[in-house]
């Protein structure tokens, strides 16, 4: 995985990410993550933390949910998801520019969705 050193399967999440707590790509905590077909096929070869993320995302989960369910800090989870995404093992759905505010069409859909709850 990452370029900053290979990790053994026996290390804690921080070591797995080579001490990184910031992903290269800015991942929003509400970004939705799904394992890709390739990710599903190769996940058994990955370091456990990475495999767990792939397995968990057989149905889409947000970065925050992954962190909560796997009991990993948010920053580390972002790094792992970022690595997996760079390798094409998961796909990430989030706005092109996470800093931008949601557009009006999207807000309308949220309104409709809330009313239909």
């Amino acid at each position: 995985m990452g370029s900053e050193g290979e990790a053994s399967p026996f290390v804690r999440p921080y070591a797995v990410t080579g001490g990184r707590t910031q992903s290269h790509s800015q991942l929003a905590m509400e970004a939705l993550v799904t394992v890709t077909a390739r990710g599903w096929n190769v996940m058994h070869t990955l370091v456990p933390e990475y495999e767990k993320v792939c397995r968990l995302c057989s149905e889409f989960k947000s970065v925050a949910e992954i962190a909560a369910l796997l009991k990993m800090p948010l920053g580390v989870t972002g790094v792992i998801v970022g690595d997996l995404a760079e390798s094409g093992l998961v796909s990430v759905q989030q706005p092109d520019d996470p800093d931008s505010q949601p557009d009006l069409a999207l807000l309308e859909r949220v309104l409709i969705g809330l009313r239909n709850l």
Partner: protein
Amino acid sequence: MKIVIAGGFGAGKTTFVGAVSEIVPLTTEAVMTAVAERVDDVRGVPGKQTTTVAMDFGRVTLDSDLVLYLFGTPGQTRFWFMWDDLCRGAIGAVVLVDTRRLADSFSAVDYFEDFGLPYVIGVNCFDGKLVHEVSDIREALSVPQDVPVVTLDARDRESVKAALIRLVQQSVSFRTKVGAPVGTGIS
């Protein structure tokens, strides 16, 4: 998509999230490394201090490809540096107010005003009765006239839904008024 739920300790943030969430509200822990004098001292890490900030959140699926997350702000004011991450790209915020402790909400109101994030004030009526008039609360919090102040019961799903709808409407009018670019990626 996300909405931020703010308010002082005990204002009912987790109850509010739980009332509409399709999952039992989860807690995630963000480990913050900050050069801050006010956070706890960590021995043996010179020049760096870390602290763990817990926040609760819930999830509401609105459509097959549209999921709304509700994030509760870490209650303690010293964790405000976390709020920037929470608020970036958010639809807006609901500031939950406990009328017995109005002052607890001042800081959240100031923060969202500064950040330019649309928000509504949600007055949580714990026992079904309103202790203060809405106009009094508005005045006490000195929120602008165009910021909605709604009363709600954080335990009640319909009541929480209504507050969220009001916020999204506020977000729509805010965007239209401010003349912010329509469409993602233009700003």
